[in-house]
């Protein structure tokens, strides 16, 4: 079984968010593997361990090499190789353009299963995965909480409002993983050493035209104003004053 895992590099949750002239200042960002994608890597490796085959990490990113160690960690978990598509002016908020580039690369990989996270924690668009499936003309199941493979047939579970949906599908197939789909292992030191010997390829790709929407302006949530302590003779008195304020000042009741 040939499995391609889509791994997006997203700003580290510790990166400081700063807006300059309505745009996010990305200059000081550090990047990490999108947490949802880690579930995909773990699931892919489990399938490989049970059924044999190959797991390839595929990532589209800029020419910044600082992410390489984090991608190598995915190989320590058990992926066999990594391919990084390096693109000038790469942006994480262009799902259509990015899906075009990624699907072009996947076309040549004869993948049975393409698996990634349900969304990137940078822009939360949940779009790239389904778009790739569409471009490749294969079915997709998104937001999967449990995925099993028996006799070449996948059984996926999805949480839907008030219930559980079970979907059966044969390959090729694209799946996006929901949070905590599986517990990501802690690799052993030996696996870290092995990961250094696994193929890690960087390929230059050209930017592509797309009809992705443009961000007009970004802003941070307004700073929280100070709180207020309501004084009063008794609890009843304080509650009365609070209700009064909620009616007249906050105008919420």
């Amino acid at each position, binding site marked *: 079984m040939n499995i391609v895992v889509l791994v997006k590099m997203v700003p580290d949750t510790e990166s400081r968010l700063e807006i300059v002239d309505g745009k996010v200042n990305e200059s000081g960002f550090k990047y990490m593997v999108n947490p949802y994608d880690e579930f995909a890597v773990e699931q892919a490796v489990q399938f490989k361990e049970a059924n044999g085959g190959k797991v390839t990490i595929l990532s589209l990113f800029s020419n910044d090499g600082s992410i390489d160690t984090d991608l190598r960690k995915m190989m320590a978990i058990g992926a066999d190789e990594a391919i990084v598509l390096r693109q000038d002016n790469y942006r994480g908020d262009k799902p259509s353009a990015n899906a075009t580039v990624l699907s072009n690369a996947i076309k040549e990989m004869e993948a049975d299963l393409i698996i990634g996270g349900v969304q990137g924690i940078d822009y939360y668009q949940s779009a790239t995965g389904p778009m790739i499936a569409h471009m490749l003309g294969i079915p997709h199941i998104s937001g999967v909480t449990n995925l099993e493979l028996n006799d070449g047939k996948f059984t996926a579970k999805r949480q839907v409002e008030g219930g559980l949906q079970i979907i059966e599908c044969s390959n090729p197939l694209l799946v996006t993983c929901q949070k905590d789909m599986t517990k990501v292992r802690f690799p052993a030191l030996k696996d*870290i*050493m092995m990961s250094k010997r696994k193929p890690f390829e960087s390929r230059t790709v050209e930017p592509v035209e797309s009809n992705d929407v443009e961000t007009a302006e970004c802003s941070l949530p307004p700073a929280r104003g100070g709180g207020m302590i309501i004084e009063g003779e008794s609890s009843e008195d304080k509650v009365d004053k609070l209700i009064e304020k909620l009616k007249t000042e906050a105008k919420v009741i």
Partner: protein
Amino acid sequence: MEKYESVDFYNIDQHFTEEEIMVRDLVRSWVEEEIMPHIEDYNSKGIFPREIISEMGEMGLFGCYLDEHGCAGFSHTAYGLICQELERADSALRSCLSIQGSLSMLPISLFGDKNQKEKYLPKMRQGKLVGCFGLTEPDHGSDPTNMATKAIETEDSFVLNGTKMWITNGTIADLAIIWGKLEGKIRGFIIEKGDKGFSAPEMKGKHSFKASITSELVLQDCKIPKDRILPNVEGMRGPLTCLSQARFGIVWGSLGAAMCCYDASVKYAKSRIMFGKPIGSFQLVQNKLAWMLREITKGQLLAYHLGRAKDKGEETSEMITLGKMNNVDMAMQIARMARDIHGANGILNEYPVMRHMANLESVSLQGTYDIHNLILGRWITGIQAFK
């Protein structure tokens, strides 16, 4: 709790290899997910769950700088970084690594024979067998040379008598490396759990290292087969070689404890409002934070340099002594300062500082501050001042 931020003011990270960074990050995330949520509980109950040892074994942390019997053969610097991350959580974790790897596996690896290595090392590496190191006695701490534990040789066995004290993991250990005198010479013996005449009651009532198991080892006419002596070492060189390796780990581990206290202090100083502003805006508090950063940075440079010297086999035991003395002393002062910055909150188990502060009192013992001074004094003057 807010996410932990490590300290790297001088960009020392650039000097670590990619593998070293990966190992450090692995242990950091394991500690974050598996240990931090429970450590205060373990500490207050005085327990160290056995599964922790299994998990450490599965990751291959024990004896990871050894290059035999499936050990990973990582650099000493990588080992140091592992110690740093473990002790960031609690000294009990680093101590467990140290006891298993440097004080139990290492003597077997360096001084044991082929059969002993094959019998114990693979299972110890995996955390399936737990070891401990019995050197200190009730009446002999800083002067182990004068130990009272004795072995006599009979036709088919050795018979040991004596008591060891303060032995980490003794009660849960499957085997103990016991140092005792045979015909007046210090030798190493492997005692197995269940050997007749051997018992390991737990010592209770500690105010420090509470999440670590500390035991007494009692040997009463304990008879062991002849193949349980470590054949290839005699004299204090045996235990001292191992202790030096363990102290190397402490050079890094104490940095981890200091980093944790510094991180907690910075966060607290920025959020605690007193006299209408964050306490971090007062010069006296900033002075303390700046001192912490300065000392940690110096300690990191020292640890890094020592690590690389060890990777090249160019370190001396005195170099390790200086590093251990400096970094433990620095960490103890930082922990106390951190408690001060935290005010009354500093004594609560909601914050890690008092736990580290208490732990470091024990960490400072493996060769006390003054004993390390005497070791350096001997190196400087050529005159030994121990007795």
